[in-house]
């Protein structure tokens, strides 16, 4: 009597695999973070509505030590380093992603061997917030990471 041959099942059952994949996809989609956000850290000096006053505390001490300063105005920004200054128009700064600021800061560091990381950023009331961020971002790019913000009229 011949033995009855059984059929060989040659295909995998993919249903549990697909179930697992679907669950994983739903979980990962639900917990996904789509906005890539980061922070630009600053220290407050004085934001008095009258012309800058010397505040008390650490920020004030840093302000005295800081050798680099930038003033942000609505239509331009002025960079100050010991004995030299540079004015950049807003259009020019925005056009090259504020990179002129990083270049100025880098030059200051290289020419005078600056080892400090403080910069005083003075911002006028009518200045655009985006300009402040662009400026601060460029200082961070060249490792001036202690940024003291001062408000001025």
């Amino acid at each position: 009597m011949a033995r009855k041959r059984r059929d060989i099942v040659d295909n995998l059952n993919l249903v549990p695999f697909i179930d697992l994949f679907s669950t994983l996809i739903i979980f990962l989609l639900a917990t996904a973070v789509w906005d890539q956000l980061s922070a630009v850290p600053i220290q407050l000096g004085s934001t008095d509505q009258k012309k800058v006053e010397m505040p008390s505390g650490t920020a004030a001490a840093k302000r005295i030590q800081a050798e680099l300063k930038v003033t942000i105005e609505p239509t331009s920004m002025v960079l100050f380093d010991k004995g030299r200054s540079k004015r950049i128009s807003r259009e020019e700064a925005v056009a090259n992603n504020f990179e002129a600021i990083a270049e100025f800061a880098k030059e200051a560091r290289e020419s005078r061997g600056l080892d400090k990381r403080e910069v005083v950023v003075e911002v006028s009331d009518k200045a655009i917030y985006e300009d402040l961020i662009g400026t601060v971002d460029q200082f961070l790019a060249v490792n001036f990471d202690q940024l003291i913000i001062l408000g001025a009229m």
Partner: protein
Amino acid sequence: MGIVKPEYHLRSKFDLPSFRDRMLGPIGGRKLSAELNLTSLIDVFSVIILFLVSTFSATGQILLVNKDIKLPKASHGYVLKRSPIVTVTEKGVILEGATVGDNKDIEEKIEEADWALPRMRSQLKIFKNFFEEANAGVPFPGEVIIQADKGIEFLYVKRVMFTLLQEGYASIDLVVNGEAAYRPEMGAESDANL
């Protein structure tokens, strides 16, 4: 002409019962294979999972961006840390989801001797007290997160900063759009790259 019962409008050759009969019929019938080819589906699933896993963030979303705000872009930002969140718009100031100030006629208010936001100050005081009670002996870090629209005038942000400073919040993270380039502990390492 009498009433005609509606039937398939397609020729019987193409309708489903005829098709089934033809496939399974005794004369010239073929075995009907009902299996789907799942290979391409699994390929797509695998790609989606790889993408989602690579973008997965264990820390989650620290803050929700206000719908009225378009954040400025920056490429050298730091990783966000959890602190009280202040949202500044042209309409008003929101602290941790609650409106604490109105920015109407801000240009006139600037002439006032004290233009701090009283409701914001009292709320900040509560946060500060809570921190000091929960972390006895730990110096108050005075950290806060500010999110503001990229096109706003600095005056609006300045008023908030002025209020923050009065309550001892001097360390501020300005939220920007863009992936974090640095972590705080990377400072020394990035010095070497200069």
